[in-house]
């Protein structure tokens, strides 16, 4: 039962995010589809790389006509126009008096360009998945992983055969970078989160673009660590900016509107995990499975203890500073007893088990499953947070969803 892992995750390794979308001859994507703007930009870069400046200019002209607020496209368009009259030395080779009027904006655009290219050049290894996704049940149809160092968001489809990378997008994070700790620090949090809701764009200011998907920052681990702040969303861009610089937000993860649109239409609230890491580690699915083995054993042992009904034995799986929605372990123990009395020694089954690992100074696991006793038609959907203490995994949070 626990083995429902990430077998045969077959991600593709293709040159651009958009190209990885389909193996069949791709129908021409509408111009406002997700990823198209970047694909068009990269096509222009590629033409420049082949010294086909004339053709590149034709494409750039069309791109800025369609997306006049795509600043990086305007920058490249300006360069290609300039290249008609003199050689270009660097991206954004504009007259000095112009560059001096907004040096930071120019640098940000160069950085945006650099990160877009880097993310497209250095693709995740074929078939690999972020190391956090040790097991993802079919309850999660999709998963999201953000690599802040690459300014990239990866969208996965969770199929019966495992996680498939379906597309990836340029994103912006906090002005002050990552590792959010306190409210107002303009940093983007790092950790394992879930999308909690889908905010209607009509209720939002234009600033948020095509919508917003809040995530559950601060999560249990964050709160335990005393982190503060709220309102961390995935959201879109304002009408005057197609994309924003790599570090531009108050802590949110910001995508171009067509990209966010696609995500909003694709993912589900509550069940879609969002892993935000400084740098994602990409591992083969079988490697993730064996990584998860020791934890899987611990989870099975907890299930067996609960099946046996021995309260002390069960409580040995919980940390002394365990909490459950404000209750201490002592305060929560009656809840556990009530559960045990309902089950009455029947075998506990864990269904649709997901566990996502988050490792920084502590090795933690965010676990979600359905807990059903044999003979019962329904049970509880539970979320637990585990941490590794030495070579023992212990629960420091448990709650029903």
């Amino acid at each position, binding site marked *: 039962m626990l083995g429902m892992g990430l077998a045969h995750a077959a991600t593709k390794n293709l*040159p651009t995010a958009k190209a990885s979308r389909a193996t069949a001859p791709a129908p021409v994507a509408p111009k406002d589809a997700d990823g198209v703007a970047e694909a068009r930009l990269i096509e222009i870069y590629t033409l420049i790389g082949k010294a086909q*400046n004339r053709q590149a200019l034709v494409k750039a002209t069309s791109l800025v006509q369609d997306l006049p*607020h795509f600043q990086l496209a305007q*920058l490249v368009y300006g360069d290609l126009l300039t*290249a*008609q*009259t003199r050689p*270009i030395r660097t991206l954004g080779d*504009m007259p000095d008096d112009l560059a001096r009027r907004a040096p930071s904006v120019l640098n940000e655009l160069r950085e945006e360009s650099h990160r877009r290219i880097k993310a*497209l050049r250095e693709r995740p290894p074929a078939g690999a998945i972020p190391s956090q996704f040790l097991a993802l049940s079919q309850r999660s149809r999709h998963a999201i992983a953000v690599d802040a160092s690459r300014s990239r968001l990866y969208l996965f489809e969770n199929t019966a055969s495992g996680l498939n990378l379906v597309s990836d997008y340029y994103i912006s994070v906090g002005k002050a970078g990552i590792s959010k700790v306190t409210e107002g620090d303009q940093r983007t949090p790092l950790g394992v989160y879930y999308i909690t809701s889908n905010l209607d764009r009509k209720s939002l200011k234009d600033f948020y673009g095509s919508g917003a998907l809040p995530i559950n920052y601060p999560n249990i681990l964050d709160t335990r660590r005393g982190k503060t702040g709220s309102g961390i969303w995935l959201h879109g861009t304002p009408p005057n900016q197609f994309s924003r610089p790599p570090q531009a937000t108050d802590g949110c993860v910001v995508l171009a509107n067509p990209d966010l649109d696609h995500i909003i239409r694709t993912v589900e609230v509550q069940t879609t995990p969002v892993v935000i890491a400084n740098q994602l580690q990409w591992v083969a699915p079988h490697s993730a499975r064996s990584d998860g083995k020791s934890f899987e054993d611990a989870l099975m042992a907890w299930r067996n203890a609960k099946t046996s009904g021995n309260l002390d034995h069960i409580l040995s799986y919980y940390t002394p500073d365990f909490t459950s929605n404000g209750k201490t372990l002592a305060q929560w123990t009656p809840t556990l007893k009530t559960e045990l009395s309902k089950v009455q020694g029947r075998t506990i089954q864990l269904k649709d088990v997901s566990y996502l690992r988050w490792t920084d100074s502590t090795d933690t696991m965010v676990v979600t499953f359905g807990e059903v006793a044999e003979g019962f038609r329904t049970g509880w959907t539970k979320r637990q947070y585990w941490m590794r203490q030495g070579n023992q995994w212990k629960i420091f949070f448990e709650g029903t969803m």
Partner: protein
Amino acid sequence: MGSLLHAQDCKGFMKHARSTVFQPLRLLTLVAAMFAGNAFADEYSDVSQLVRAGKLTEALTKADQYLAAKPKDPQMRFIKGVIQRDSGKTSEAIGTFTRLTEDYPELPEPYNNLAVLYAGQSQYDKARTALEMAIRTNPSYATAHENLGDVYAKLASQAYNKALQLDNSNAAVAPKLALIRELFSASGAKGQRPAPVPAAAAPAPAPLPPVAVKPPPTLPTQAVAKAPPAPVAAPAPVVAPTVTAPAAAAPTPAPASAPVAPAAGNSTREAEAAVKAWANAWAAKDMKTYLASYGKEFDPPGSMSRSQWEAERRQRIGSKNNISIKLENVAVTVEGSKATARFRQDYKASGLAVSSRKTLDLVKTGDRWQIVKESTGN
């Protein structure tokens, strides 16, 4: 005469007669028709003189009278468009030139003037399209190339402003594009950039054939191209290997490095040295030496006096940041005190790169070889 520079100066000059082999048959007929009778040419020059004298209303009346009898006549329609433009009737002028491009799509001049009008309305994308059409029509059309260079620069500036999200309102000033005053001018009308054409009629200068234009410079790989994900075949930056008169060359006559044909006599060597010195002076913007390269017998183009021509040369050359003149395949023949130098001239400056065949006729006065005639083409 008709050096490259003069080509860009003499913006009304494009003579199609010399390039008919490259043009559709239709243009051939057209040109033949244009020059069929002197009476027509007189009508044109009458109207043009009225325009130059600032009598726009009279000029328009006369043009309309003429067009009543010959409504299709491209030359008079063209002149009418110029009159409308000069009278500030921009949209009417746009209409006139647009219809000319529709009726005579093989003519670059109406496209050029359309571009001037669009640019005047800050419609630089339309101006660019029109100029690109002009160049497609006649790839060696120097006026359109130079205007296009200005339009590219303006569009680039706008794009950079948008990239940086700067307020564009006080950004770079509008470029002043060169308007063509007449089609197939028999009297050598010139563009008005920037000096107004003197009203006096002048003997026709030598026809000015189109000049070959180099492809625009490419973006070097190490620039933006460093970034793209695709495997990159390193394109060579546009650097011509043969450099005989780099921009930094000393403005002294007869540079010591000038290669000398082994069998050349003294006269040939001297004449060739004079040509090199002329090119060096041009590239170095050494106006004294440059202008002194031209003899007293030199006939300025169009109706310009020598002093007007010199003033224009000073303005033109002085306004460029970097001029590079490269001469290739220089062949000099000498007969007594006369010499002819033929060569390929690669000119680059401020957004314009033009390669053309050029012929200089020189005459020896005392111990100096001086230019008496400058023409483009073979």
